[in-house]
């Protein structure tokens, strides 16, 4: 399955998908030390986003969440790429300062955790193995 979105921050990555069908808050929602999701309302609570291709509909919560994405990168616990339905300030800024490839405009409801995904953020493309 090939999906076409829009580049937010360029770069290429390949890895296992982890998909949240709910909006994700990074401040207080993801542990920057471990990459484990702690957001009580999240459907991927308790799972790690480290080294995976992370997909979710959009960000929510405090704008300081951008810095949590930066800390994940510095701690080696960042996702390899970020895919969202709709980009907003918090996650876009976080991906840019952390240098994580990011694509928006993807229908995240079509994606499932565990599948392999290749992201070419420069072209805004996501390819998922069925």
């Amino acid at each position, binding site marked *: 399955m090939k999906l076409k979105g829009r580049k937010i921050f360029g770069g290429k990555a390949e890895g296992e998908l982890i998909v949240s069908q709910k909006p994700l808050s990074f*401040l207080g929602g993801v542990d920057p030390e471990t990459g484990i999701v702690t957001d009580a309302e999240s459907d991927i609570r308790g799972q790690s986003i480290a080294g995976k291709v992370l997909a979710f509909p959009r960000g929510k919560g405090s*704008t*300081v969440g951008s810095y*949590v994405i*930066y*800390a994940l990168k510095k701690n080696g616990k960042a996702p390899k790429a970020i895919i969202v339905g709709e980009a907003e*300030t918090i996650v876009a800024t976080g991906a840019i300062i952390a240098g994580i490839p990011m694509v928006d405009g993807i229908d995240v409801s079509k994606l499932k955790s565990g599948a392999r995904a290749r992201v070419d953020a420069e072209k805004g493309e996501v390819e998922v193995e069925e």
Partner: protein
Amino acid sequence: MYLTKEEELVLAGEYGYALQKAMEILVALGDIYGADRLIPIKSAQIAGVSYKNLGEAGLEFLRDFVNAGARVSVYTTLNPAGIGDEEFMEKQREVLELYRKMKVEVTSTCTPYYGANLPKFGDNLAWSESSAVIFANSVIGARTNREGGPSSLAAAIVGKTPNYGLHLEENRKATVIVDVQAKVKTSVDYAALGYHLGRALGNDVPYLRGIKPKNAEFLKGMGAAMAASGSIALYHVDGETPEHKDAIADKLETITVEEGEVKAVREQFRDDWSDIDMILIGCPHASLQEVKEIAELLAMRGRPLKVPLFITASRAVKALADALGYTEVIERYNGRIMADSCFVVSPVKGWYRGIATNSGKSAFYFRSFGFNVRLDDAENLIKEAP
């Protein structure tokens, strides 16, 4: 989004890593929100100052950014800092020092317009404190989106912001008319009205009819409450605010606010004095006029407060209060004026059980932190407090 040749060079990294990152943020936001170009800003105001909010993650980013040569290129002030134990304060001082190295004016207040950073009508800004954003847009008629901490920092470094949202004339028109039938007279009525509208409207641009605020402080308190309980960034008041005349372009839906709705907000915050162990005035930071009023109310009361009173204010207002003798009066009655700081952004859990305040914004946040809250006018609070 269109970029000039110069902006393209910045984006390509010709002027170093920090400017490049800042430009990447602005370009991405411009593309996300459909901006046609970047526009110059007159000033920036940065949130993401308290160590409680920034945490180690934010501090590390600021360190790296300063080392990469980040410097602001327009006049920039800061949001309030946090207060905490010695370990916390050490981190807090480092945060402020890093901003100082970026050539930010290290005056930490949510009311920069009471001192260091007063915009004029029509100025484009990149401000990020929600109560300052709504004041600048609505009461002054300057133009700013509700920036995040990192995006206002990026704008401050580049000196520009993407041209979208509230920078555009068409997005500054009212989207709903609010017919206020409730009697809204005192400052706490305004705070309660703002709290109610934030809840009811989300991110509309309301046009309010039927209110006649005594002064700009009443509007400051109303707007801060709206921006805390909802995400309103601009409102108009019939006959009062600078853009009201051109604010209604289309036929709009009208909602009414009845007496009971404003009262209901006040009823939510009526915890008993026996559950209150501090009084907080100055959220957003108090004006000199508000400080003077408190000093007079205390003198009229004539006996010290058993429950300590904290007035948070900008350093500019505190300096004036010191010089004019108000601080001395306030201290005589167990009050303190605290400059540059804010309880809402401090690790306050466990310090107090309950607060009494005249601020709708503080009522909202302290309730969410699990505190008892009593919301009332400064006059009643000072009169009734043990």
